[in-house]
């Protein structure tokens, strides 16, 4: 299913708030082999939250968008991802992402969707801006 170019400029509803718990950070860090997941339980609390951790709430926003547009996740590959942080994410944060579609173009049978998600904390202050490009692979059956 092609992605509708009329989506450009549309902001999708904010995600549900994602609590940044010590456990979720440790699991994330451990899954990429990071030190925050090493050592005895509870260790690693002195290490910063991994910089790519905001993908958790960003991905929730992307997934909401794909579901709303009835796009199958298996047809999507991640083309580009950038984060600009206003401040580091810390345990105790509650993050919400609001996604806007910034571009849709078609190249070689694939739709390329550009998005920007503003990630805010419980007070509504911006923590991070995440821009993502998704490639919807229309080619193989």
């Amino acid at each position, binding site marked *: 299913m092609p992605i509708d170019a009329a989506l450009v400029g549309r902001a999708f509803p904010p995600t549900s708030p994602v609590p940044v718990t010590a456990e979720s950070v440790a*699991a994330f860090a451990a*899954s*990429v082999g990071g030190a925050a997941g090493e050592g005895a339980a509870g260790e690693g609390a002195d290490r*910063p939250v*991994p*910089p790519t951790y905001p*993908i*958790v709430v960003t991905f*929730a926003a992307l997934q909401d968008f794909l579901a709303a547009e009835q796009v199958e996740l*298996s047809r999507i590959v991640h083309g580009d991802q950038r984060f600009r942080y206003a401040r580091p994410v810390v345990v105790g944060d509650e993050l919400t992402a609001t996604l806007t579609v910034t571009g849709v173009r078609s190249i070689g049978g694939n739709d390329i969707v550009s998005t920007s998600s503003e990630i805010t904390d419980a007070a509504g202050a911006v923590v991070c801006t995440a821009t993502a490009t998704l490639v919807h692979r229309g080619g193989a059956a």
Partner: protein
Amino acid sequence: MTTLTPGAALEPLTFEITRADLVAYAAASGDHNPIHQDEEIALAVGLPGVIAHGMYTLALVGRAVGEWTGDAEVVELGAKFVAPVVVPASGAARVTVAGTVGERNDDGLLALALLVTVDGTKVLGAPKVLVRA
């Protein structure tokens, strides 16, 4: 931790990614796209096999930056995913993160110029890292 002098080489770091890592990462990140788990689905959509989440590779860059800078605050991080990182059913993909210390910008933030490869093939395009260090 490396001395962060502009032009200084950053010690290349190599990380392994296994299928089990992708399962753990899917659970931790919420990204359950089956192309990162299921060979048949990956092949059916035209991929060369099960591929790592692009964000897994970018997370490894985050680890390398943390090691090089002593966990300096990262102000910007991003890249294009220009080649798939194929993760075999047994064994591991080996991602190498290398780089040099770049220039300090007007805000005093330090850029790191990176080269991220698997078996000599560049897998991240236009990687950008800015740290407060």
